[in-house]
């Protein structure tokens, strides 16, 4: 999401960032999907002595249990992407539903809004830690905890957008024609809210991937499920990580993987933003 993209004269330059972001993400998704084919060693298998540096057949060496770190990197992508997708999808859906309801529900709008405000008031990271401790570390509990703290802010944004849309003339027109509220939402409101939801989805996915790893690093990762956060946690728990070059082949790959994923998502976000809001982009160019 950076300024220079908008300045290029041609469409290709304009979309190059998004395209590279999408390609990057696609590569990671494909690697994750085909993990068992790409990495022959199952991640749970002990393939050598603990903490072996990279060598023949083990491109990234082994972890404390003598498991293949390359396999962990590839299989770990599944957890990260899954958590990212689950959280982003559920959080976006929830924000959309609650936001629309708080603007259009026949009754109880104030109550809905109060609940939204309550969730906004509870400090988020502490709540996540609390929830994960409460539910026990794991893919579902982490996803649930991240959903709980991530939907409320955008519910308000959606609400604001819906409110401003409802006031527009053509919505009144559609209503006057006798369309049901559901139809109004589908035909008139949704197109206006969609760009916000796309942005929200990508931002949340990026955030969730990072948070999953962060929670893992705090020791709140499920030791039974391979993930980038878990690999980082085990790496940073190794007392000699920075006394040897173990950090290079143990901690750096999952860190890079996280960075590449977030960069990919951000690059895509930038372009979707432009695509859905050409006016903003045009304005941006005209501004110069």
């Amino acid at each position, binding site marked *: 999401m950076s300024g220079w993209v908008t300045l290029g004269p041609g469409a290709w330059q304009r979309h190059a960032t998004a395209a590279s972001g999408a390609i990057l993400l696609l590569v990671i998704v494909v690697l994750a999907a085909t993990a068992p084919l790409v990495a022959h060693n199952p991640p749970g298998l002990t393939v050598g002595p603990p903490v072996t540096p990279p060598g023949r057949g083990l491109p990234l060496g082994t972890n404390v249990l003598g498991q293949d770190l390359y396999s962990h990197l590839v299989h770990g992508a599944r957890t990260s992407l899954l958590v990212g997708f689950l959280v982003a999808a559920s959080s976006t859906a929830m924000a959309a539903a609650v936001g629309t309801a708080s603007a259009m529900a026949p009754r109880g709008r104030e109550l809905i809004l109060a609940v939204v405000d309550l969730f906004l008031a509870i400090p988020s990271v502490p709540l996540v830690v609390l929830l994960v401790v409460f539910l026990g570390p*794991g893919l579902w509990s982490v996803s649930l905890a991240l959903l709980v703290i991530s939907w409320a802010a955008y519910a308000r944004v959606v609400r604001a957008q819906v409110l401003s849309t409802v006031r527009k003339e053509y919505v009144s027109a559609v209503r006057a024609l006798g369309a049901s509220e559901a139809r109004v939402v589908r035909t008139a409101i949704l197109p206006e809210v969609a760009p916000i939801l796309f942005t929200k989805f990508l931002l949340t996915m990026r955030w969730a991937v990072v948070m999953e790893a962060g929670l893992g690093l705090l020791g709140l990762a499920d030791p039974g499920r391979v993930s980038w956060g878990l690999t980082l946690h*085990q790496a940073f728990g190794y007392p000699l990580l920075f006394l040897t070059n173990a950090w290079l082949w143990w901690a750096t790959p999952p860190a890079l993987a996280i960075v590449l994923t977030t960069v990919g998502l951000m690059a895509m976000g930038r372009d979707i933003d432009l695509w859905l809001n050409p006016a903003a982009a045009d304005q941006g160019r005209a501004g110069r």
Partner: protein
Amino acid sequence: MLAAIFLVAATCVLPAGAGPLPSGVLRLAWWTDVGFPTPFAVSSLGPGGLVRLSLIYDTLTWKDRSGAIPWLAESWRVSPDGRRYTFALRPGIRWHDGRPFSARDVQFSFEYYREHPFVWADTSVVQSVRAEGSRTVTFTLTEPFAPFIEDIAGVVPIIPEHIWKDVREPRKAQSVETAAGTGPYLLADYRPGAGDYRFRANPGYFRGRPLYDEIHYAVIPTERQVLAAQNGQIDAAMADTYDVVPAFSAHPHLRVWQSEPLSTARLIFNLARPPFDRREARQAVAYGINRTQLATLMTRGPGIPGSPGVVSPVDRWYAPRVRRYPYDPVQARNLVATAGYSSPQIELLSSPSPVVIVMQDMLRRAGMEISVRTVDARTRAALVSEGKFQMALTFHIGAGGDPDYLRRWFAGGEANLFGQSPGFNHTEFLRLATEQARSVDAAARRAIVVRMQEILAEELPTLALYYRRFYWVHDSRKLRPVDTPGGIMNGIPLVENKLALIGPR
């Protein structure tokens, strides 16, 4: 009546080894703040607080490389029935504020602890304490208690009567002057939250000259301590895997001191619920886990596999001839079948640890599918004490010193919220547990403790998986650790035995 069974002559025990160590500041680290260092406010989470107390406060006895030695006491006598201990105290001891220490303080301490219990030792066996003059104090116990010298006299800090006698809420008394003892170092400064402690030498210490002008503690996460030691930011760092030993073998001045293997990784079984209500099922788990391989893998070095009798093989109370359960997946399968469980679904309760992954794998090969429920340590403790589990994994220290821990862990009743195996009501074991604690005859006690290990090995209310040493990377120019059999006090594998922190007068 006071026919002396034995009389221990006071010998001034000093750290061995040649050459003087430089004075100055000793910088140590711990992974968390341990609270205000009085016996009432200090944190009970982990041994860091108790060991820090031992710098400020003294106990009647202490431990050197040979075992229990007199400390505040000069000598002690025990009555033939084992219920009366008489300590002769050393003369000329002073509190940090200059007031003289006397037998009254000892009496006061134990009476005060009855009102405000000390978290690290159960003093309920002490019926009365009487000071006779300023240098003699007599303890009368409700019943003979063999671990008295090591687990009570050697652990309970003696506090000054003149400071505490009017304090109603001792947990909340947290000013530096309150934390006055007789110990080699006195509290100079404590920063709560940051977890920074500064101790200053007590120049008039009665057992020797403090080696350091000051001792500082800072909070450094465990995983970064070795790096901090390597960078010269601290003088000793703790690690729990062997690989630091080869890593520093060629270092010019950083050496690695290994504690005794006082930390145990063990499984707790719930004997009140299937499938582990059947002994065969527990034994199947024992046969199904390759403990030697697990030990080597997890400690990344010469691992010490768990003894089914719980007591570790390097302990002097170890019983070698208990049932052994060598790794045998076929036997494990057969036992599972004998127990009447075709393919048991077993849930393992554990805080996050890679051990479970390896165990899961091993037990699968022995015909047992284990699902892991990962929870944080408090949750696990709660579920175990409520009996809402089948099998739980725990790591803890204290597996050393006086063998009374076998009673406290497996027959301790209410005191034992954490360690017990629900449903383990083995009549003979419970009787022996009480008997060994009362046994005044050393040889008889040994026989009982051996028998207790045999029962534990046969019945398996718990399965010791392996023992862990703590490895202390330390600057050998500044610190010379002292080997302490069974750990400091009751099984603590830390480096800062105060004997290593004082020198000859």
